């Protein structure tokens, strides 16, 4: 079974992935994805009827702990990594028009 990925799908996935691909990259992404999906389709040979999807190998549940502050104010150091900052805040482009 050969998968065909449309231009629209690549556009849509690009939006989900927050990636801006060049025309060349889009072509490559399309053929890469088609090949991968053809390969992934071999999973359809397996009968998984009634098998629960296993997201975790161990039976783990949410782990809760008290929300106790153990560190000090690290905002100055944290902000050092910010591409842009202003008045002790991360600076981003205008978000509301």
């Amino acid at each position, binding site marked *: 079974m050969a998968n065909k990925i449309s231009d629209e799908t690549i556009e849509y996935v690009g939006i989900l992935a927050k990636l801006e691909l060049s025309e060349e990259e889009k072509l490559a992404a399309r053929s*890469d994805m088609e090949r991968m999906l053809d*390969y992934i389709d071999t999973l359809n040979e*397996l009968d998984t009827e009634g098998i629960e999807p296993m*997201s975790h*190998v161990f039976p783990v549940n949410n782990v809760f702990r008290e929300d106790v502050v153990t560190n000090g104010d690290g905002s100055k150091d944290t902000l050092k990594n910010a591409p842009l900052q202003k008045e002790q805040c991360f600076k*981003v*482009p205008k978000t509301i028009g």
Partner: protein
Amino acid sequence: MSIRSLTAVQLGKKIQAGEVTVREAVEASLAQIDSVESEVHSYVTICREEALKRADQVQKMIDAGELTGPLAGVPVAIKDNMCTEGVLTTCSSKILGNFVPTFTAEAVKCLEEAGAVILGKTNMDEFAMGSTTETSYYGVTKNPWNTAHVPGGSSGGSCAAVAAEECFCALGSDTGGSIRQPSAFCGVVGMKPTYGTVSRYGLIAYGSSLDQIGPVAKDVTDCAAILETIAAHDEKDSTSIGRDSYDFTSALVEDVKGMKIGIPRDYFGEGLDPEVKEAILKAVKVLEEKGAVVEEFDLSLVEYAIPAYYVIASAEASSNLSRFDGVKYGYRTAEYEGLHNMYKKSRSEGFGPEVKRRIMLGSFVLSSGYYDAYYLKALRTKALIKKAFDRAFEKYDMIIGPAAPTTAPELGKSLSDPMKMYLSDVYTVSVNLAGLPGISIPVGRDSKGLPIGMQMIGDCYQEKKLLQAAYTYEQTGSYVRPELAEAAEKGGR
């Protein structure tokens, strides 16, 4: 014998005995870095001054009797996807080219508290996505056994650094074989522990349900000592497991009498290099002669592990890597129009092709309309694979097979065909899907002189069985060094 040819545990003993100072050990590693790094390129960042300063601090604590463990004073290298406070952590990506973490990963912290001295951060495939260390933004790492070949990946820098004696041991991370496969290619010992054994806190996530930090070492003794140092329950990692025991070094016993070893026929079929096959079966024979009970069996489902793995790993990666948006840290594009354009441009310019490929695939399999057909199907397959292993471990103490179908490929031969590269992970990915421990140990070399690695897979929490069998095998021969490490010692370089 030079200092740097010692194993980590041997060095630690000499440091405790006052025969070698920590500074001498660090200087020996740095001298080797100076002499071979231009050829091998194991490191992204070398912490020369910090390491020397730390050496003196650690020495004082050893002299005061405050640090008595086996790794006190031992120079180590850390894969560049583990956060290190104040030290550049790039994940070998352009997008983290200027990222200096404000905290240290728990596993690294454990090593530091044990007195290890960090020499630097090692090269890797970008965001650990790759099997050759060629997708790094900071140049390729070369195999110390033959610099025309890759070291494997994604922990290629850590494994090459240990083999080239640019450090005494290292930490790597393993999502689909990223410790075991490069360890095999570089002729060192590498272990992926049971999922949840080592804290992932501070490990930059790729596939969170599969990622696990583990040791890369010259021998099994070092491997056990490192694991014992870094394994601990950590409440900062919600998937960390509280184990009954964190003792691993007591497994270093030469005895495999009665141990049941399963040899999966499906791991020795088509696609496996005959020289690799022969070396592994020979090593299995050694264990059999020492009293292990060896039996062939059919593991089944082996061909479904890779497609399931790439769906799950890519899905998790697309989610995990959404945090790289040019706002709080890392690369931001120079020019942009509005917030979304800034996100898109920063990410598109900051990520390399392999990372983009996996983010795209992951976003696709998680998108509505495809989620059930791909993502849930892969999770169901994972459940079946886990069951197949459960059945095997009802009969066997461990499963033995190759770590990779071939020895290290030549540089530049793998990336042109990603599918082919993915297929080379056939023997390692299922171990991550099932959360099992696995170790790769050197069992000889092929006709080109490249190392061959044997993979031993255990049931959950059975690291000690693996260490014991690996240790027993190791007693039959001594650690072989690459010529590059020996030549430098003779002053040939």
